[in-house]
């Protein structure tokens, strides 16, 4: 190997190994700031799609797979959403975990208690009712 080539390769090796080392730190920092999503449950309010376009469903509706139920209640100018984990395995895995309700651009934090229940409040406006037509319940790592 010529002297010229040695220094070029040395410089290149320094670039590669320090880029690797720096990005390991950056990715660790990035993972620390973005909590890992443990599970995502999708709720689609198909039943209300045509007849009661801008209203809330009556009774409990289930996420795909049936692992989470959602109930909507009006409460002095807001909508209270009550989420309930269903089944022993789901309860065991996600009770006492943090989560969030994601509807369009809206993200509302929530927390499941020991019985697998979580509640959150949304403003009662038509846009919000529309936004909750399809939404996700995400369980995130503490």
């Amino acid at each position: 190997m010529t002297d010229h080539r040695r220094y070029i390769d040395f410089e290149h090796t320094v670039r590669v190994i320090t880029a690797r080392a720096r990005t390991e730190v950056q990715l660790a920092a990035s993972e620390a700031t973005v909590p890992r999503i443990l599970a995502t449950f999708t709720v689609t309010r198909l039943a209300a799609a045509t007849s009661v376009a801008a209203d809330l469903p009556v009774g409990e509706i289930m996420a795909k797979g049936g692992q989470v139920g959602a109930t909507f209640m009006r409460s002095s100018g807001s909508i209270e959403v009550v989420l309930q984990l269903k089944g022993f395995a789901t309860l065991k895995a996600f009770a006492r975990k943090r989560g969030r309700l994601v509807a369009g651009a809206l993200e509302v934090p929530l927390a499941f208690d020991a019985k697998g229940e979580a509640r959150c409040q949304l403003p009662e406006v038509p846009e919000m009712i529309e936004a909750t037509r399809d939404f996700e319940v995400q369980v995130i790592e503490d």
Partner: protein
Amino acid sequence: MGRKAIVTGRTLLDDFAAHLTHKLDAGTAGIVTMEPGRWYRELIDLLAGQGHRGQVYYAHLVSGALAAADRSPEETATAYFTMVLERRLLLAAGEEMHLGHKLLRRLCRRGVERGWSAAEMRRSKGAVAAASRFAEPRDFPDVAAALAAIDPTTSKGSAAPNTIKAKGPLWLTVEDEHAANVPEEISIWQAIVASPRKQRASATKAEFDEVCSLMINALDTANKHYGFLVRLGLPPIDWASELTTNTLRQLSKFKTAVMEVSGGEMNDRPAWEAAWNRVDIPGADTLDEFWSSPVGKAMRMAEIARRTAGSEGEGETIAGDDVEGALLDHASFAGLLNEASLDGVLNTVEVWIMQQVKLGRELAELQKDLRVVSLVSERGLSIEEFVDELAERLQAWAQDHFEQA
């Protein structure tokens, strides 16, 4: 032949290459499922300024501030992606493959399906695939189909037509039996998209470094055109199709010459006259012509650089002075670290740190060493900044030496 940084934030380009390599390694149980659709969205978000370090990438790699005010960060980030990651790499004279091909070959060798570890690339005028004794990797037809979907034409200035004439087209082969024709011009992104869907993640830091080394070399080449435009203060999104890399290289030299004479002022006619005698500008016969051309005006006055591109309409040509770096083994690397130490560039603890990084130890781990803690806190830097500073010192030292060699 200089290798000094020609783009703003070469460190950031290296980080971006390492970031991409980490994406190619992110899987479970050592197996990665290639998800180019998801990665595309994530990379656009990152380049547009979102997420951890997104703003740094947007400001210093994409150089978003150069874009016209009505361009959104997403539009500018998408333009960067198209101009760099999707930039078709061209074959240079005397070469059988370029870095896009080498990256594709490396990724194919990571394929999980049986046979991929023996993937090769070679040129052949005759039939490549012989009677089959071995089964092809099950996803070989998918890779072949992805390669067949890439535009097979070659650009003006590419050495590919002569190479094909002399040595035949390029083939991706497995066990010398299964062959797929590889287009002459492929981009970094096309290499990623065409590679096998299931791959083995790097099992060691050395394997990571091999892929990252290729990615850094490939990005160096692919980013060159964009980097020159940024250096000249020309918004890439408006000027990319107007000027070739070779013209930009000359313009960059011209700018350096003007700045040296004028002391940093670009709109200085006497400095342009001095620079005109030192640097040839392709396509400009007289200084007056160059001074008043769209690119001349844009170089002199940043406020008119946006959207004033002319229509020089030159074809792309091959950059002739690319030097591909290769990874050194541990012994050679240690030998050069010791040379740097004898020259007073690094102290003994700093040599030890660089050796440990080469061996694959993570900075978070090194940070627990008391000698490192003491050295880093003495400088008032984070461990990341400290290693960055060590790298800068070593690179400057290496550049001095290879310019003398």
